[in-house]
């Protein structure tokens, strides 16, 4: 592999890893703070992608807006949807055993998949990136790299910084972190833990949907995308340590690298590598690389 190709693959792996992190961060938050295994998290990613496809013309017609307007609409919609979903369904899962959570959210995947099938069908769609992000920039003399992929990485990095800021510097973040380790104490401080959980859940949904929306131009929009990303996200969360956002970031980048370079160097084994990695790490550190933090 020459230097230019290597560089391109590095950038690809970082972009993939960051996107994975975006989805996985929502998963690990919900996991770590509310103790819920949510198999349907991948569905939110898929819904986000289909939203990017379906909302764009609507937004263009009604408000005359473009790409960012669609994103904004999508984020608002997902926050609202996440809020309602938590209230109507997920709040009942907190007290249940893991097995029941697994099964109920598995049923939810089936429901979401079919609703999507009924509403928008099963076709694969391409979503074009906005014109001003559609070009490539040159890397050295020989290769160029799509601007849009850099944009994806940029958005993810910004969100990661934002999350870090919220968690460590704001009262809300402090409440969230406290709520994960000591429910009763947070409640006795007069903070309504139910609303807190609802907000965290809505944020998790929005992160996944946003990831789907910005990934759509790169990965295209197809029915099975939710499941694919879900399983890899579980690997990210488990390797990174349940509840640890920092761990999720590092694990996602690691998996991004293994998956991207794996596909290039060992295409027939690529699918397996990520799981081999997970098994190896878990055997070395059964609680993931990082504890919640």
């Amino acid at each position, binding site marked *: 592999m020459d230097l230019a190709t290597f560089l391109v693959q590095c950038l690809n792996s970082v972009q993939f890893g960051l996107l994975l992190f975006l989805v996985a961060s929502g998963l690990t938050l919900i996991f770590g703070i509310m103790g819920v295994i949510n198999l349907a998290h991948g569905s939110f990613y898929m819904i986000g992608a289909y939203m990017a496809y379906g909302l764009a013309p609507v937004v263009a017609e009604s408000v005359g807006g473009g790409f960012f307007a669609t994103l904004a609409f999508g984020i608002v919609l997902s926050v609202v949807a996440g809020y309602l979903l938590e209230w109507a369904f997920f709040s009942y899962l907190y007290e249940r055993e893991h097995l029941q959570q*697994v099964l109920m959210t598995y049923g939810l995947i089936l429901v979401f998949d079919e609703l999507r099938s009924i509403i928008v069908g099963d076709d694969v769609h391409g979503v074009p990136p906005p014109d001003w992000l559609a070009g490539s920039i040159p890397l050295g003399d020989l290769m160029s790299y799509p601007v849009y992929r850099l944009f994806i990485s940029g958005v993810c990095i910004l969100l990661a910084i934002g999350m870090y800021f919220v968690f460590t510097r704001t009262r809300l973040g402090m409440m969230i972190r406290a709520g994960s380790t000591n429910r009763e104490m947070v409640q006795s401080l007069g903070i309504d833990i139910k609303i807190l959980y609802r907000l965290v859940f809505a944020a998790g949904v929005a992160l996944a949907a946003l990831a789907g929306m910005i990934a759509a131009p790169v990965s295209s929009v197809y029915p099975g995308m939710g499941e694919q990303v879900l399983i890899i996200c579980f690997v990210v969360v488990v390797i990174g340590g349940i509840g640890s956002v920092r761990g999720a970031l590092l694990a996602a980048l690691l998996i991004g690298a293994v998956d991207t370079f794996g596909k290039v160097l060992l295409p027939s084994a690529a*699918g397996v590598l990520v799981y081999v990695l997970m098994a190896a790490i878990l055997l070395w550190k059964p609680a993931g690389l990082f504890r919640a933090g």
Partner: protein
Amino acid sequence: MEVSRAAVVLSLAALAGLAAYPLVASDFGIDLATKILIYAILALSLELLVGQTGLVCFGQAAFFGIAAYATVRFSPEYDAAAIWWLLPAAVATSAAFALVVGALSLRTRGVYFIMVTLAFSQMAYYVIHDTPIGGGTDGIYLNVPPSVAIGPVSLVDLSDPSQFYYVALAAMTGCFVLLAVVLRSRFGRALAGIRVNEQRMRAAGFPTYPYQLAAFVISGAIAGIAGFLFATKDGFVNPELLSWHLSGAALVMIILGGLGHLRGAVIGAFALSLLEELFQSREFVGGFADHWHLGLGASIIACVALLPRGLIGLPRLLRARLVGARHAGAP
């Protein structure tokens, strides 16, 4: 837990019904029932792990699919293999995989355990799906079903659906009885103790790891029996036999039927399969038959939410409701 006399009588009656079924059923009915019996064996294997030992394994499909593929791979291309070596070989393959997966997975606990078993199952799926071992993403064929013969005398013709049905029924009954005996033994009681309170078992002097690993291997072997039957029934296997959807379906079966009871696994297999058929049949749901996952998903959610003890707990639930209603309705 003790089994009531009513349960035994009902079980025997159900067995008799199943034995008589081919006499009245259509070809489609026999085919469906055979498939359900095979899934019942898979569900029983998972019940041993989840319901009895307390290990929530999300990778049961791997043991099922590996044995199915082994059955096809080990069989000669145009001859019938003898079942006397083919079945043990297929079962041994999945048991060996279960040994490795168990040995490594049991180092983790709780949610991590669920995820590691899922990961190992996905590994197997991708090996079968992507590498030459699996023979391709579309699946491979078993051209000739194994022979069941002693010397020149053929005992059973596995290509005859009715005879295959009885073989499947016998296998399921055999697995059921075997598990019932094992669970009543000292080994089985130790598994139950480990499920309820592993720490107390260790404090009493039980090394818990070997017990759990043994349960894993037995479970993998029984799932392997199901895989063998599946491969020989239709003569076709594809990578989807190892998909996590099948693992999920198996979990749904044992919860739907009732966790902690062997009968629950069988009941759940029947209930889920019939539910799937229901939601796919146009007579009942009309146009929605194409979107049968919707009804299925909603049913799974409703079942887990409303029937925490599964269908086996339904009589008790109804009785409690009726008793409560009687008290509430008194003037």
